[in-house]
């Protein structure tokens, strides 16, 4: 390979071509759907393009950070995240009845967002350190690392984010080798404690679950979102109504249709064929992520790559499940598809880590 000295081209060497191609394909679809869903709003389209450019730049940057440096960022980021969560609990700003925001003077900030990345980094760093000497206590300590931020976010209250964070932490423990009997035992215990959890849930949380069971019970209230999005998807049929031809979309029946409910617009205009194509693209991204994980030379790389991949698909599942009416309405965007800068940047930052793991093949000397 002819060597070039230009820094920009050197940076591109850390890009995983297959992953980039898949991501750009989904982003292309997203641009088309946001265009339709926003009624060709120039502000939305250009905003979306800017977000994409920014997020891709962040991804490129992260791809160039070697994994061993990334792993070192784990403990300080995790510690900072915990401090900020405590800060929220003590001084946080209440919005919409929940204490989630921290006013930093120049911007409002949700520390829980930081934890989404910091927790896997921390855990991956921890299990890397204890590679080859893993004992039960390491999993217990890992569990505590998971539970502390989980509980802090849960009592904000923000059940959705807490669960998503818990799931990503669990994936990491799972890939680190958490024994099956513990997993199964936990599952049984979890199922048994469901009624207790129900009792501890807030009214609005219970309502969302109930709404899922019978959206028609409140057709003009909270059930409206689910009803209209399922109508949109179902009316799309096999081939869809065509780009910018969805009546549910064009006539305002779909709520939040550039963000959380973008799949309803996509399903209406591109039909079942479109849905299959989109799910296949996601699966290809996951598959690529798992291949990267399998080939990764370090424990940190393996755990991060596998966790990030599974996490991505969890978001896809929760969002599409919610929009098509099989999961409760939680404010989770559809990865790579929904309009919104923060989520896209966080996501592509993760993809950048995947690429870093994929392209930094030599064993790091630690």
């Amino acid at each position: 390979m002819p060597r070039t000295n230009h820094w920009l081209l050197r940076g591109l060497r850390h890009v995983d071509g297959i992953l980039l191609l898949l991501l750009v394909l989904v982003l292309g679809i997203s641009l088309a759907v946001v265009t339709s869903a926003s009624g060709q709003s120039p502000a939305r389209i250009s905003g979306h393009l800017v977000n994409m450019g920014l997020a891709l730049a962040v991804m490129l940057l992260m791809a160039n950070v070697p994994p061993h440096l990334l792993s070192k960022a784990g403990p300080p980021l995790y510690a900072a995240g915990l401090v900020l969560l405590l800060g929220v609990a003590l001084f946080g700003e209440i919005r919409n009845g929940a204490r989630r925001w921290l006013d930093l003077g120049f911007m409002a900030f949700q520390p829980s967002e930081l934890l989404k990345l910091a927790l896997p980094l921390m855990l991956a760093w921890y299990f890397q350190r204890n590679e080859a000497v893993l004992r039960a206590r390491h999993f217990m300590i890992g569990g505590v690392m998971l539970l502390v931020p989980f509980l802090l976010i849960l009592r904000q209250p923000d059940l959705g984010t807490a669960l998503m964070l818990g799931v990503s932490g669990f994936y990491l423990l799972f890939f680190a080798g958490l024994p099956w009997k513990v997993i199964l035992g936990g599952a049984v215990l979890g199922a048994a404690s469901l009624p207790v959890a129900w009792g501890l849930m807030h009214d609005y949380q219970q309502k969302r679950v109930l709404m899922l069971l019978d959206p028609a019970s409140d057709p003009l209230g909270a059930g409206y979102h689910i009803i209209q999005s399922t109508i949109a998807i179902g009316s799309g049929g096999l081939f869809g109504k065509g780009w910018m031809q969805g009546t549910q979309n064009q006539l305002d029946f779909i709520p939040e249709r550039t963000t959380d409910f973008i799949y309803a617009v996509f399903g209406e205009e591109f039909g079942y064929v479109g849905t299959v194509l989109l799910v296949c693209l996601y699966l290809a991204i996951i598959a690529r992520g798992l291949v990267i994980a399998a080939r990764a030379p370090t424990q940190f790389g393996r755990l991060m790559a596998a966790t990030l991949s599974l996490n991505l698909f969890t978001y896809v599942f929760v969002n599409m499940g919610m929009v098509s009416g099989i999961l409760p309405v939680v404010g989770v965007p559809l990865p790579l598809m929904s309009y919104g800068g923060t989520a896209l940047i966080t996501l592509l930052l993760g993809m950048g880590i995947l690429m870093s793991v994929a392209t930094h093949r030599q064993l790091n000397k630690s």
Partner: protein
Amino acid sequence: MPLATTLKNLDRELARFHGRLKAGAIFVALLATTLLGRAFYLQITQHDYYIQRAENNRITQVPVAPNRGLILDRKGRILAENYSAYTLELARAQPAELEATLAEVSRLIEITPGELRRFRRLLAESHEFETVPLKSKLTDEEVAILAANRYRLPGTEVKARLFRNYRAGPGMAHVVGFIGRINDRDLKNLRETGREQNYRGTAHIGKTGLEQSYETLLHGRTGFDQMETDASGRAVRALSRIPPVPGKDLRLYLDEGLQAVAEHAFGDYMGGLVALDPNTGGVLALVSKPGFDPNLFIDGIDPETWKALNESPERPMVNRVLRGLYPPGSTIKPFMGLAGLELGLRKPGDTIVDPGYFSLPNSSHQYRDWKRGGHGIVDLRRAITQSCDTYFYKLAVDMGIDRMHDYLAHFSFGEKTGIDLDGESAGLLPSREWKQRRWKKAWYPGETVIAGIGQGYHLTTPLQLATATAMLANGGKRIEPRLVQAVRDPFTHVWQPQPVVVHEQVAIRPEDLAVVRQGMMDVMRPGGTGAAAAAGAAYTIAGKTGTAQVVGIKQGARYDAGSLSLKNRDHALFIAYAPAENPTIVVAVMVENGGHGGSTAGPIARAVFDYYLTGKRPGTLKQEGSDASD
């Protein structure tokens, strides 16, 4: 830790990791299958259902109410009409948004608490995409204010709507009736008869009178605009239109001028009058006094006025012609006489000697004649002329109650006449069987005696009396009375005559009928009980007077009008037709507490005859109504 152990551990952990990767892949595959399965269910299996739901979301059928048909009198004068006025209407919206708009509107124009209450009630009752009226009959100034402030009144619309107006006033209320807002009972009825869809966009429905009985024709068919609407209910574009079919206009037999003359002739008396054309059954006039203003009811009557109307002792809401029940009294005598001849019980020349009373065999009870000392020798014709009670007591006993019942039933007594108005009473024509069924008691011979002069159980409406009298005038044709003569097609403007419905043709021997008719002509000649009412008429009248007792008179006492308070005085009855030789009009009059039929009811009938046959108008009645407009 030895390097070998570390390497062994590393190998084991790596193998385990690869196993976990496979498990993760399987997990992802399961989730993906779930998503695709759900999408398959929604988009393929249930596609038809959801495409329908999406279409229902998108397409709104906006009803277009048809114009209600007009009601015209026989000369084309308008009795019920429509006029256009502006109303302020609001589209449905989120409650907060709606309240803000309401507050804004109230700052601009006056909204009364009553209008607000009505709006909220209508809002609760209305269909999802219909606008709801807040204030009707806006002034030009209010329309201008609302138009200028439209930008800050989202969802408001100023619409031109049609309203109903009854030009004819209280005298016509019992004929034309009125429309009122569709209530829950109307809605239930519409639903049960499958007409609900046709009333989307219509707020009113006929409640009484012709407005009620001809509702289907007057209403027409609702049209629909198919609109594409967005989620907030705003129309984006029109897709197609099914135009409404206007209601049909009704032309009556009734003459507004004749109606006014009849009403005027009552003076301060209350009562009822119906005039029929004996050849068609057409109702030429139908008066029930007192009347009321039907315009009060159109947009909901206020509770105080309603209470006053409903609880008034004069009962202005009761149509006396259709629902007032009175003993026929002496007006039954021509029919009794005809029955006697037709059943072969009497011959025209048969006479009795009237001592002034009648007694049943083996009884000392005296059924008195109204004339002390009696009428002397009387045949049927004279018995009718002088209204001799004794003649008919005896005839009734010879006939027996059951034959009397069966014969009189042919003349609509005890049966509905079939007039084209709802709520008609059937009256009561007694019989042995009826008494057994109703009272579980045997029939007494004395009851037959008084039945012969129209007293006792027998109850009739003025309309039944008129229908029966028309049969004397037309030779036994029982024709169902009709108010509506013709209906006009809204597109071709052609008047379609309504059929004359002959309910029954009773075979009456002409010579028998002639005797009765001559008796009735004699009634109106000097020496007859109605002579005063016919004095100086340019045509001949045949009639019969009667009184309907309000208070029972004790045995041995005599009726003395002077000693009774006004409300206990007898009701005066009068039936007549003219010209007697070739009748074109039949009248039945009932004057409440009018005393003797000849003196109060007779002149009312005379005024009606005069106007109808000669065009003569009472001097005190000023020219009313407009002349024919088409």
